[in-house]
């Protein structure tokens, strides 16, 4: 388990300086808009694929701390991975949030959210970007 101090640093860092937050106007990217009905979160996620590789992930819009940090961290994690690897990361993230068995090593910085499951009203914030990524992968696979 990460200590609380370290988790907070990771989240502050990704919230105040998100690496993947930018608007994308490139038709080669697939995109998905996702908004919360209870929080301010209202973001669009963009993904670029090359064969079976996730080449790029970006997002823009408005998000609270949990939404922005979780989306940015997972975007980092699945970038340059194969689709199968990306799906495995997302699956483990969902498992962590659902309090099921998951592989800590594969989630790296996303372990910062390992107690999100205890904050029922923030689970939506911490999964809104991740749902969008899952949807885009599905979109790509079903093309």
């Amino acid at each position, binding site marked *: 388990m990460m200590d609380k101090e370290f988790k907070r640093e990771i989240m502050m860092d990704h919230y105040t300086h998100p690496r993947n937050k930018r608007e994308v106007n490139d038709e080669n990217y697939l995109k998905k808009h996702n908004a919360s009905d209870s929080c301010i979160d209202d973001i669009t996620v963009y993904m670029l694929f090359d064969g079976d590789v996730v080449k790029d992930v970006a997002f823009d819009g408005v998000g609270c*701390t949990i939404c922005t940090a979780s989306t940015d961290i997972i975007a980092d994690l699945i970038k340059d991975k194969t689709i199968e690897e990306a799906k495995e990361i997302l699956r483990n993230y969902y498992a962590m949030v659902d309090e099921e068995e998951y592989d800590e090593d594969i989630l790296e910085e996303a372990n910062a959210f390992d107690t999100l499951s205890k904050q029922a*009203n923030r689970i939506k914030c911490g999964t809104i970007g991740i749902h969008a990524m899952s949807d885009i992968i599905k979109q790509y696979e079903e093309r």
Partner: protein
Amino acid sequence: MFNVEKIRNDFPMIKNAGCIYFDNSATSFKPQCVIDRVSEYYTNENCNIHRGDYDLSVKVSKEYDDTRKTIKKFINCRDKNEIVFTHGATSSLNTVAYGYGLSHLSKGDVILTSQVEHASNILPWFRVSDLTEAEIRYIPFDEDAKFNLEKYEECFKDRKVKIVSLTYVSNVMGYKYPMKDIVRIAHKYGALVNCDGAQAVPHMKVDVEDLDVDFLSFSSHKMCGPAGIGVLYAKYKLLQDMDPVWLGGGSNARFKSDKELILKESPDKFESGSPCIEGVLGLDVAARYLMDIGMENIEAYESELSEYLVHRLSELKNVHIYNRNTDTAIVSFNVDGIFAQDTACYLNANKFALRSGNHCAKLLIDLIGTNESVRASLYFYNTKEEIDRFVECLKDITLEKCIEAAI
């Protein structure tokens, strides 16, 4: 004499909640006497009403019906039969929209409402508008969502407004709208007024005879009573002229196989099905409890709390208040640079219960320029000392602490 310490002893949740509760616009705590009344029904009085030919049912039926007398006194209407029990304010408001609106509105008519309304007082009218082709029009408000009677009266000039559907108190801005003048002007142009009293009735004396309002809706659970029960008040001639939304047992006098149906008189025709009996009995005790304290005393004390809360919050440079001149103990705010839900999460970690979001008033965004805020809503059992602790806690808020609260 208003004795808040004595009052606090009546509410077990004040000791048991484990937090300072500032979410009273969502629902209120219940005093022990209300809890006991509900429990008494299930312990010693469990039976159905209006259906049993035995002493117990006759006794409880009378207690249920006598609650109309209590509510009659509580809102000062002329006749106890003007009180319909519903599932809550939402159900009351839907009853007006579908029971009156659908049969009395048509193309060319206008439903006049506002952008501060709760979803429950706007969405049913959207549907009525779709079904009848009546137009929905919004009253132009002043800046900060304040009411302007001149602008309001302008809305009637083409004589198309048939019904005004408006909240008495905004659940986000805490403003009390001038209902007596609103009704007077509407009646001058032949329109009726449907008043959403959900945030008003629990906090101040609402006198329907004085207001001359045509319909009034409110919930029991926001006024110290049980959940799942509410009231629709309407002038009796209007109730007689309305259709019940639900049909079933209890509301009909007789029906035949050729579809002939004769409904009972109001209010029975609106109360199909076995009702929430314990809810009505609990509401009776809640209304008496509030009347014993005195609605004027409650309003005066809450006004003191409200002034104090705004005054103390104003000391914090990083807090932006959206309704500094609130008329009630509802204050909406944000902390600079921190999203509403992050603030509420921090407050929760420090044992303060508040709500963040748009508070079901999604059209308000256009008026106040923010779509999310944190809302503190106090009731007569809250104290200045709780406000002090709340302000001290907000003084220390940082983004780091908000994040820490979520992990």
